[in-house]
């Protein structure tokens, strides 16, 4: 498809009208089409990325990607980095791969989340299933890399489960009580609920059988000595109790991925946008310049004095452009003044972590997941 695209362009331009293009270089209009999305007033054009290696073979241009070429051109620039949010520019990569990272961040980087809730008592007005669902969505601050996945026939043990206890009661005659996520208390020794022991063997055991089989206390493991697992935010409201009401439950958190359920997604969201490019196609001066500056809601343009009382517009902050197209509306003369484009291989990536891992670690984990996928296919094929 990419090849046809190239040929069509060729037909429109007679080769004799074009200035000489050195071999190995694309003429400007094709280069523009290859590297930019052009946002016209009605719709964007050239949105596809031209992937086929031989797309420009007839012009002596090799469109294939060699690793050394990629390595030399690929750049990352961090713009903002806090505990929760990270913004960075990823330059010199195709959308297919940038998008793979985004999809993996949302759906395939594991975290810990509450999956099983054992309810001993719940007299609040929140139904058991609703309460369990709410608990599941609380972000758990625990490094998922320290845990294993629990499959259907696994016993919950200290390597795959974190147990929390929640036991709250609202005093009779008192005011209503709001149950927040800080009431979830970590049980490093595992479940405290004793399994219904109908079999005679369990009575001979010294330790009663519970819903988990921990071989040691989790807080004796070096990984948890200084960072006890718990809810990331302590002020998430889970239920409100009226006087005399009570909740007693145990919540078991396990490792999972966002594909299974969104509660395991490690990011609030992760997204990217292509770098906007705003180009003034001709000098914009005086009143028109003022008008242009006024039109832009995010203040992309600035006005410069160019001497003898004349003023001209400049593009000062193209990165802020939201592509609202306000500056090219209102007739052809506006469309001829400003060109709005997006750079196809420059991605402004933003990652909002929910708290289990800092955003920069999430990204490295996501890249590792993609590597693992490739490896799996390679071993499958060998």
């Amino acid at each position, binding site marked *: 498809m*990419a090849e046809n695209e190239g040929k069509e362009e060729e037909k429109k331009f007679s080769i004799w009208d074009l200035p000489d293009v050195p071999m190995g270089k694309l003429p400007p209009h094709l280069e523009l089409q290859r590297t930019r999305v052009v946002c016209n007033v009605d719709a964007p054009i050239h949105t596809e990325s031209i992937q086929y290696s031989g797309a420009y073979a007839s012009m002596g241009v090799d469109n294939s990607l060699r690793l050394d070429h990629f390595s030399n051109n690929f*750049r*990352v620039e*961090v713009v903002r*980095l806090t505990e929760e949010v990270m913004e960075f520019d990823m330059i010199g990569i195709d959308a*297919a791969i940038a998008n793979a990272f985004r999809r993996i961040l949302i759906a395939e980087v594991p975290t810990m989340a509450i999956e099983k809730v054992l309810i001993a008592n719940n007299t609040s007005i929140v139904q058991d299933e609703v309460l369990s669902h709410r608990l599941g969505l609380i972000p758990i601050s625990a490094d998922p890399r320290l845990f294993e996945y629990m499959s259907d026939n696994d016993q919950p043990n200290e390597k795959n489960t974190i147990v929390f206890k929640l036991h709250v009661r609202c005093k009779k005659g008192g005011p209503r009580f709001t149950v927040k996520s800080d009431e979830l208390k970590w049980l490093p020794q595992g479940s405290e609920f004793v399994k219904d022991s109908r079999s005679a063997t369990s009575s001979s055991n010294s330790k009663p059988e519970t819903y988990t089989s921990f071989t040691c206390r989790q807080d004796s493991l070096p990984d948890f000595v200084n960072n006890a697992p718990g809810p990331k935010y302590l002020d998430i409201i889970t239920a409100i109790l009226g006087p005399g009401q009570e909740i007693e439950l145990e919540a078991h958190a396990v490792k999972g991925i966002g594909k299974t359920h969104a509660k395991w997604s490690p990011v609030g969201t992760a997204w990217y946008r292509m770098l906007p490019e705003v180009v003034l196609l001709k000098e914009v001066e005086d009143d028109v310049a003022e008008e242009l500056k006024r039109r832009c809601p995010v203040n992309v343009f600035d006005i410069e004095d160019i001497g003898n009382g004349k003023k001209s517009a400049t593009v000062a902050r193209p990165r802020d452009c939201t592509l609202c197209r306000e500056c090219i509306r209102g007739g052809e003369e506006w469309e001829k003044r400003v060109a709005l484009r997006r750079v196809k291989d420059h991605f402004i990536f933003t990652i909002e972590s929910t708290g289990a891992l800092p955003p920069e670690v999430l990204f490295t984990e996501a890249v590792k997941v993609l590597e693992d996928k*490739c490896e799996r296919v390679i071993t499958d*094929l060998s």
Partner: protein
Amino acid sequence: MEHGTFTDHSSATFSLTEEDHTLANAVRFTLNQDPRVTFCGYSIPHPSDARVNIRVQTTGDPAREVLKDACQDLMLMCRHVRSTFDKAVDEFRISNPVKEMNIDSKK
């Protein structure tokens, strides 16, 4: 799983389970970038099946090898992305030590 013919190894369809657009689209990109590939594409036969079919037709090399190379390329690209990213984060930390201190004090 590979679906092809015994006589012609240069074209085949590979059926990968437990994969989706994430891998298939990225691999299609690296396949497309390989000059030995004359055609490649992928499809997801049914949205509720976790399965994706990748079609590869080459100029003569075995499709299986070409697909393997494409995965290898993708993996190497990922490695490079990871190291570049880590370097960029480190550089950012060095050039913004004040901000970094604020983050630590919040912990």
